[in-house]
């Protein structure tokens, strides 16, 4: 710790270099954005500084001789069930800086149950046949938006029926999946174009996030949901009319109740033009929408956006999963939203205060079940689709979310993992070694859109196949038949209250 702060050696990771395998080729030095590896001129070899390692594993992944191992620093504080090491380190950091502790990505805390892991799916045996999705048709097509209460028909002159009911606009998806909102700025253009291309190839949608839409991406509009958030960045007439849907972002699962802050360092020429903010200036999204202080205000904004887009596209409202979420969702639907997106507390972010991320909000599973039930009880479930977000890790989570009442799910962390993210959580530094959460020209080019788009397409194809297998096993041939079908779910190890909230029986019942 020579010449360094006294707690510098309490770092999280150790870099272990295999001396037999390391050839001093310097690949690790070039790859590390945090300068943890360096060339020691006097020793004529590559050395490293463990204190700078953030655990992103980029060097380990690219080391051509597999000479690197990144592991948790083995040093342990004395066991203390109350003062876990992270709390001790928080105190040291804050005593040094006096600042709010920033984090990136979703909450890693382990004391909040992951209900997906406590839910089990059904399968057909004897009395009802399971279906082989490789031999029989299987429908994953999903429509998002308001549905009519009933369909009325008239007869044409030649006696054939004709639909009389006027249908409201819907978003058509080939899979019940969408890439959730990640703004251009928080992630770079290479990934935005990759998401746009992947969504187009898959017939699903991606969400622009609050950073506007770059002109060159308007061509992917059919597969784009454009977002209007509290900062109104990049919002103008053409933007509102560019996509297949408009989303009003009220809250985000990772940081309910607080706004956003894109640091000026991330605002390069392209981001500046797209966001309509000056080059290099911080883009600060306020915590509330300053024109929404009630459901009536939300109603006004929803219809202002519908007017602006000539009622051609559905309007979604995204909220964070918080207490009373069901009542809030009911208000949102009554305010005229066609889609309600609910973002659970494990949702990701480019930057959020750690205390907010880890302590505010509720898990998506509970919120989703409650919102679906409330809308059904009030007889307004058909007036809006529900999109679940925040911590969807695999296709089984998707299936369980749909059985709990979601029409579709948003996933973003999984999409970033597909293109290399290792959840190191340093997005807020703008120095992402994987070239994801950075606009540094040298780092951003690490994401080749051709490679990234292919990976995203592969991931969704894979999930699609697995969803079909799970549906087939349950004897269902359409995702519609699973929607809100909680009889296909059973709980393990949950309390009566939890099962009551989720609306599921215990396994064995």
């Amino acid at each position, binding site marked *: 710790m020579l010449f360094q702060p006294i707690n510098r050696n309490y770092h999280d990771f150790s870099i272990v270099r295999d001396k037999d395998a390391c050839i001093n080729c310097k*690949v690790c030095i070039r790859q590390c954005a945090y300068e943890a590896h360096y060339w020691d001129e006097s020793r004529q070899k590559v050395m490293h500084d463990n204190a700078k390692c953030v655990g992103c594993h980029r060097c380990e992944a690219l080391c*051509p001789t597999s000479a690197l191992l990144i592991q948790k620093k083995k040093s342990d504080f004395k066991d203390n069930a109350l003062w876990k090491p992270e709390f001790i380190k928080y105190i040291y950091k804050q005593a040094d800086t006096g600042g709010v502790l920033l984090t990136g990505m979703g909450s890693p805390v382990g004391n909040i149950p992951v209900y997906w892991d406590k839910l089990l799916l059904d399968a057909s045996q004897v009395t009802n046949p399971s279906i082989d999705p490789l031999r029989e048709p299987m429908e994953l097509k999903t429509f998002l938006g308001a549905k009519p209460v009933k369909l009325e028909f008239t007869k044409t002159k030649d006696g054939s029926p004709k639909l009389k009911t006027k249908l409201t606009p819907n978003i058509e998806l080939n899979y019940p999946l969408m890439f959730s909102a990640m703004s251009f700025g928080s992630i770079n253009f290479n990934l935005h174009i990759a998401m746009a291309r992947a969504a187009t190839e898959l017939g699903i949608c991606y969400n622009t996030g609050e950073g506007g839409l770059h002109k060159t991406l308007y061509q992917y509009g059919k597969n784009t949901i454009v977002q209007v958030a509290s900062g109104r960045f990049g919002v103008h007439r053409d933007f509102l009319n560019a996509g297949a849907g408009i989303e009003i972002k009220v809250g985000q699962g990772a940081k309910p109740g607080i706004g956003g802050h894109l640091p000026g360092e991330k605002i390069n020429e392209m981001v500046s033009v797209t966001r309509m903010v000056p080059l290099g200036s911080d883009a600060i999204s306020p915590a509330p929408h300053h024109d929404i202080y009630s459901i009536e205000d939300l109603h006004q904004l929803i219809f202002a956006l519908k007017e602006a887009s000539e009622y051609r596209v559905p309007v979604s409202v995204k909220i964070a999963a918080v207490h009373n979420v069901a009542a809030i969702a009911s208000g949102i639907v009554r305010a005229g939203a066609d889609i309600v997106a609910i973002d659970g507390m494990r949702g990701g972010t480019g930057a959020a205060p750690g205390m907010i991320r880890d302590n505010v909000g509720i898990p998506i599973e509970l919120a989703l079940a409650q919102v679906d039930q409330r809308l059904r009880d009030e007889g307004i479930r058909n007036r809006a689709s529900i999109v679940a977000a925040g911590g969807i890790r695999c296709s089984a989570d998707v299936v369980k979310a749909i059985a709990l009442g979601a029409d579709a799910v948003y996933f973003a962390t999984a999409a970033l993992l597909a293109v290399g993210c290792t959840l190191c959580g340093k997005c807020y530094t703008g120095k992402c070694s994987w070239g994801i959460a950075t606009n540094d020209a040298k780092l951003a080019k*690490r994401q080749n859109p051709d*490679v990234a788009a292919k990976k995203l397409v592969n991931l969704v194809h894979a999930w699609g196949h697995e969803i079909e297998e799970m549906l087939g096993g349950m004897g269902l041939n359409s995702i519609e038949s699973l929607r809100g079908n909680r009889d296909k779910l059973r709980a393990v190890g949950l309390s009566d209250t939890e099962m009551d909230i989720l609306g599921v029986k215990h396994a064995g019942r």
Partner: protein
Amino acid sequence: MKRVYPNKDYCIGCHICELACLTAHSKSKDLILAYTVERTGEGLSSCKHVHEGGPTCVALSCRHCDEPSCVAACISGALQKDPESGRTTYDREKCVGCWSCLMACPFGAIARHPLENKIVKCDLCFDRPGGPACVAACPNQALKQEER
């Protein structure tokens, strides 16, 4: 003919192509031995070089030109244009180390062998089953072998 094309927009400057080239042209075909023993002891060198300037980087090697200046300049007949494959071939035995080709190459894609009076130049890994090693090793698909 199929040439190796670099894409400067997605070249991340990792230099892994150089290591792949070195390994492919080594006796041991083992990166660790190629880099530590053959490179330092026998002067094994990469035919590919990553050039960097600011955020831009690009991996360059012999372009296998349609009308190669190096072939025209070669005094010993070591450099030839293979009419069948289109490759600009190099016969190490014939090379006398006059460096005419080095001066003639408009791309600076030919290098001197560090220990001998010979040159180092890309052979498109013509005898490697998987095609050029640099293309196969590039982690960001910034090198492509294709017909253009």
